[in-house]
């Protein structure tokens, strides 16, 4: 309820032309808008264009916005429409299948060669190369953060959007599902794949750094 009230106030300020309110809104949502736009368009610059166009769309629609959905959901709906239109114009095939059915193509969280054979007589499917505990201090180092950023950049766009919204921006799974129009299961599959890959990248880096 508190959130709805805060949103009502924010809307009032925006409609009254309060520049500071608009600046805050933009700062809060811009990173997420660009991340989600990257699902649809091919590069960062195009994604930033889409985000900018979204803000213009928000301004255009603000007086007519009735608050039937949350402001966030409404903004992301505008973004998605603009991004899709842009993708079609650029002749890009939309990754619908990737969003709607990520389970179609199986992906292992950990390379199969890290495990013993599933038919192993004594230890089927057990670790062959076990993970080792990470040194706490290395985890917080600036270089580790750079590696993390690289690992996220290397993800497929849909996985990148989900992990960014969930784990970097701290959205709930429901908020992510609404913004990206994903089923509960698909959101989880995408998150699982993204987190598994980022963990693997960290593991590789920390092993290198430790030797």
């Amino acid at each position, binding site marked *: 309820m508190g959130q709805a009230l805060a949103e009502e106030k924010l809307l009032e300020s925006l409609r009254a*032309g309060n*520049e500071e309110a*608009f*600046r805050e809104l*933009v*700062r809060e949502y*811009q*990173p997420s808008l*660009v*991340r989600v736009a990257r699902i649809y368009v091919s590069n960062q610059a195009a994604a*930033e264009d889409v985000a*900018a166009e979204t*803000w*213009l769309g928000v*301004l*255009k629609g*603000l007086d007519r916005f009735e608050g039937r959905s949350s402001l966030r959901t409404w903004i992301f709906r505008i973004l998605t429409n603009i991004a899709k239109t842009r993708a079609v114009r650029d002749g890009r095939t939309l990754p619908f299948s990737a969003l709607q059915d990520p389970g179609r193509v199986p992906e*292992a*969280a*950990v390379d*199969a060669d890290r*495990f013993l054979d*599933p038919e192993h007589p*004594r*230890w*089927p*499917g*057990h*670790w062959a190369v*076990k*993970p*080792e*505990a*990470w040194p706490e201090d290395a*985890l*917080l180092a600036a270089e*580790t*953060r750079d590696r*993390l*950023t690289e690992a996220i950049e290397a993800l497929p766009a849909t996985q990148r959007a989900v*992990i960014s919204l969930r*784990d*970097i*921006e*701290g959205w709930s*799974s429901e908020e992510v599902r609404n913004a990206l129009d994903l089923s*509960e299961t698909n959101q*989880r599959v995408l*998150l*699982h794949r993204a*987190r*598994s890959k*980022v*963990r693997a990248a*960290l*593991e590789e880096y920390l092993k290198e750094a430790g030797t």
Partner: protein
Amino acid sequence: MNEQVEQLSCQELVELVTDYLEGALPEEARLRFEDHIGRCGACKIYLEQMRQTIVVLGHLPEAALSPDAERELLQAFRGWRSG
């Protein structure tokens, strides 16, 4: 350690970690998961690493808007207000 057929293997467990952390495992599967973690040091470390990954991700700085882009948007906002 005795092996029973219905036990999770480590290879199966790593695929359930997100479901577990999201609270999406049905009761029986959750118990099997926790039972495995209770006896398997390597999987316990793996689970901890996934948690650590999430924590470190939460400390990444959010992408910022360039000053130019912000200025343009604010200009649009002023235009909208007066238009």
